[in-house]
């Protein structure tokens, strides 16, 4: 997963994927790939909410 990806961008992509699937526009060949992408994005977002960013932690440590 892209390192530059932001939570907002990931959410937008997820919404777009959901719309695409709701509209039945996803070819069956791509369904698995899209689902996998969605799962990765969901995990990414959940991690963003529930896990510490390693980089930020590193920045904060000298101050603590």
């Amino acid at each position, binding site marked *: 997963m892209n390192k530059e990806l*932001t*939570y*907002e961008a990931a*959410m937008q992509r*997820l*919404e777009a*994927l*959901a719309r695409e*699937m*709701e509209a*039945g526009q*996803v070819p*069956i060949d791509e*369904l698995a790939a899209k*689902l996998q992408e*969605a*799962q990765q994005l*969901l995990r990414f*977002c*959940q991690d*963003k*909410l*529930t*896990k*510490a*960013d390693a980089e*930020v*932690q590193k*920045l*904060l440590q000298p*101050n603590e």
Partner: protein
Amino acid sequence: MESATLSLYELNNLVRSVLEAELDGEYWLEAELSEVRLASNGHCYVEFVQKDGSGRTLVARARGTIWARVYNLLVPLFERATGERLRAGMKVRVQVTVGFHELYGYALNVVDIDPAYTLGDMAQRRREILARLEADGIATDNKALPLPALMKRVAVVSSATAAGYGDFCDQLEHNDYGLCFQAELFPAVMQGTNVEESVLAALEAIMDRADEFDVVVIIRGGGATSDLSDFDTYPLAAAVAQMPLPVIVGIGHERDETVLDYVAHTRVKTPTAAAAFLIQHGADQLAALQTLATTFQTLAARRLQYQQERLQRLTATLPRAFALVHERQGRRLDSLGARLGMAAQRHLLTCHRQLERQSDGIGQHARLQLRDARTRLQLLQGRLEALDPVLQLRRGYSLTYTADGRLLRSAAHVPPGTTLTTRLADGTLTSVVNDE
């Protein structure tokens, strides 16, 4: 003036008796407090001032006293009503008696305070600040910022030692949803005259690193009544309004509010409420993600099922379709075979005719040649016949030979007496030449 010299006490006593005689009533007074000091004996010593129109120059000043008995009765009511402690800079409306003491001089004894006046004044001040923010077009800048979906990196402006900050951090850390927050403290003085300067410095420090945070939280802890109006300053309100990150303020009082409450993105009552706000936001995001996950599962399952049903339908119709195809192809093959046969026949016929035509041509040619040859032959024959001497003889011509058998071609050189033999068509005739 011819009078006895007075001692200071006697003079002061005189002033006191005149004052007490002339100004023996109670007066309502509007003034600004320039000093407030609560002594250990429970009495409160204040100083009242009045400034000129510019607000810079003092035009009047008087000491005042709120005796402990009055203080304990009035001031708690006042502070509850205004959310403010009595403090320097505050405009008050007080009821006083005028007193003069030989040792301590002129002083006003406060017997009543009007909280409504102070409230009105504070509200007026807030209104002025807000009007100025609006005139500058920045009053709603922070409110207009969208709340980021992810509010995780929190810049906190608070006093490091305040209980409220500890509560805030505790609550963020031990939320029920397993949310992770990264709070960084930008310490500031949250009480007293240094509030403006100190909070401004903290906000500037955050601004320099704005891209490292999602949200700013300004909190002030502790349940004690404290001076909210320290936050009612234009520079502070402007700084909050123009913060590039959404600002959440939790400095409020149950009843009262500051200009920061108006300009900040979100206002809450307490630090705990600020934490709850952030947690709720995160929880909402988690719930949204959960909904999305379910949506994906449902949609994918539905789509797969649909495809499966389609496949099954296809499987069922396949044999029939095959049979149909088979039949159609068979027919096509048959018709192709027939067409091929016919075409071959036609081709053969054409070849045959061509051959015939060619052989015909050859015969014709040969015949023509033969005819030509015959014609030529006849011509030749004719010519040959014309040359035949017998035929010439028959026409009357004759051939004359000398005795030695030579054909006589000329009359000369034939001496008389020469015997000549003449050949005619039906026989030979011998003659002798006479004289010429």
